[in-house]
């Protein structure tokens, strides 16, 4: 009996060691293309960069530092403030030595989840599948002098020693140009445009109050980041306010609220939006694509793109936004993509793109 027990324990020990060996190594050679991609991102999520890099095919011609920067971001971009959250993979094509894996990567960021879809090429290398990582070309702006005439507005407010007749400088004149309330996906969405008609910069907030058929206020919300809060003179911004779970039929009226404030501001940087066009992305969704060009001399760390879509009557039918997870280096184009609802694409007659900028080392 004692010998039998000893034999059972010996077999159990060997089996557990075997199981531990199989599942314990995070850098075990991948036996499938999908496994290689999953393992690479699993190691990256755990910040095991050596482990993650071991799944990168040598033919990728990317060093480990560049690979890490591709995943963690550079130049103070939004990616540097994000965390890899989850990865979904699907094999699009597979042969004996090569495969294509569609990878949907989800990052958790301070401004919400951001998604990236990549079709990764996976190759067999020495019997193991490895990811051919498409190295991101690191842009180095050549040393140069970019002359910028900085323009900013400073404000002298009334002071404690002023008499009661001394007026403060007045708040700017802004105007809500349009408002359109629609119901989409079970939410009431109020959108439109607002303009600063004054000659001084304005900090604006736009909100909406919904009133039901009994005349009672049922919801109040403001546009959070789907608006340019700082408007320079004559600048127009879209706004969008979402009321999830509210049906249009339950609402009798929408009362717009706003607040315009005079603030010190800078007129820089100037960001050009180049080559805008509506097309399908690799997943077949309709997107507005283009390139952002920072025409100033300082890096814009987090660009925020706002797109306004109009029908053929000039009515705002959709407002969409997207944060770019790449910083805008001076004079260097950076692609962007903003989603457009597929059901609205056919109705879009024209569109307008504006860019909010957030910079780490700039005083506004």
């Amino acid at each position, binding site marked *: 009996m004692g010998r039998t027990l000893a034999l059972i324990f010996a077999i159990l020990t060997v089996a557990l060691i075997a199981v531990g060996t199989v599942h314990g190594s995070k850098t075990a050679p991948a036996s499938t293309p999908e496994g290689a991609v999953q393992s690479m991102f699993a190691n990256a999520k755990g910040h095991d960069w050596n482990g993650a890099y071991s799944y990168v095919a040598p033919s990728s011609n990317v060093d480990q530092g560049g690979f890490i920067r591709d995943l963690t971001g550079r130049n103070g971009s939004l990616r540097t403030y994000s965390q890899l959250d989850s990865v979904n993979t699907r094999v699009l094509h597979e042969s004996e030595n090569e495969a294509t894996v569609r990878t949907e990567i989800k990052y958790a960021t301070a401004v919400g989840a951001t998604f990236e879809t990549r079709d990764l090429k996976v190759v067999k290398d020495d019997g193991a599948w490895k990811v051919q990582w498409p190295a991101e070309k690191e842009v180095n702006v050549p040393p140069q002098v970019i002359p910028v005439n900085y323009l900013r507005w400073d404000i002298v407010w009334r002071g404690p020693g002023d008499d009661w007749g001394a007026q403060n*400088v007045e708040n700017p004149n802004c105007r809500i140009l349009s408002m359109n309330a629609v119901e989409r996906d079970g939410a009431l969405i109020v959108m439109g445009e607002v303009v600063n008609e004054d000659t001084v910069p304005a900090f604006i907030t736009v909100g909406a109050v919904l009133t039901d058929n009994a005349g009672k206020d049922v919801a109040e919300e403001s546009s959070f980041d789907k608006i340019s809060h700082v408007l320079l003179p004559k600048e127009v911004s879209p706004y969008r306010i979402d009321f999830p779970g509210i049906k249009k039929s339950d609402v009798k009226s929408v009362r717009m609220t706003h607040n315009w404030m005079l603030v010190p501001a800078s007129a820089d940087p100037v960001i050009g939006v180049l080559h805008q066009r509506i097309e399908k992305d690799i997943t077949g969704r309709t997107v507005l694509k283009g390139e952002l060009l920072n025409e100033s001399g300082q890096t814009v760390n987090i660009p925020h793109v706002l797109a306004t879509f109009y029908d053929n009557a000039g009515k705002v039918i959709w407002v969409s936004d997207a944060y770019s997870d790449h910083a805008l280096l001076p004079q260097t184009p950076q692609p962007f993509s903003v989603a457009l609802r597929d059901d609205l694409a056919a109705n879009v007659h024209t569109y307008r793109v504006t860019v909010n900028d957030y910079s780490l080392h700039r005083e506004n």
Partner: protein
Amino acid sequence: MRKLIFVVLAIAVCWFAADCARAAELRVPQDAVAGQPLSIATSGSGTVYLIGPGQVIKRSFKSGGNVEIKGEELRGAGRWIVVLRGDGHQSQAFWVKPGKPEKLNFLARPSRVPVARPNVISGVTFVFDRYQNLILGPTPVNFNLSVGGAGSSKSVTSHDGVAWINSSSAPKAGAAQFVTSVDGVEVRRVVQQVAADPCNLRMHVAGRANNMVVVETDPIRDCSGNAVPDGTIVTFIQTDKSGKSTVDARIKKGTARAELPASDNATITVAAGVVLGNELHVGGKP
């Protein structure tokens, strides 16, 4: 008996007269002015209380001396009551007028206004003396509104302490100095007169470099010839086969400038607010 009654009555009358002679008396001047000394003639002895707008003054006096109130003590204009407590009890009301104008409160509206608009600027002046007493009597108040040395003046007589004017904005843009003055006392406000919408917006190709076309506007002015303020957004839109490119440029030093991608065949338009400019057709990459 009749003689005795006469003597007693004479004594009583003399006694009464002597008592009256000993009682304090008040004589208050009727032309008191805030900030100026006041002398109240009294007789006898006692204490004087002066009760005025937001202020009470107490003075003791003896044997017929005047009660002297210093100028800096008599601050409030309006109705005062002087009460005498002593050998007798008396009270008397008198009025204190405000002093000369030494302080102005000036409300100028608005702080920004487009040029060449009729009756858009208002100025209201409240005339006070040194101790914040509103001077209700008619006082000539001067208003002067000028931009760059050129401007207009007007004199208005205040009514119940207030004088006001309405003025048109000048055709010239700039920080207008809006000054109100009374007897050498003046208060200044700034009314920014700003250019109206751009007029005759035009652009040209300023150069080509690094596969980009640089477009620049001519100096942007309103229909009165004033430079549109720096910082105003000017939108350049280029349309070609690769799509639409836009740059929201800011006016700097009177012009706006943008870099757009070079194209074989592109149309560039420019707009500022609701004003459209000219259209350019450019072609041929450098």
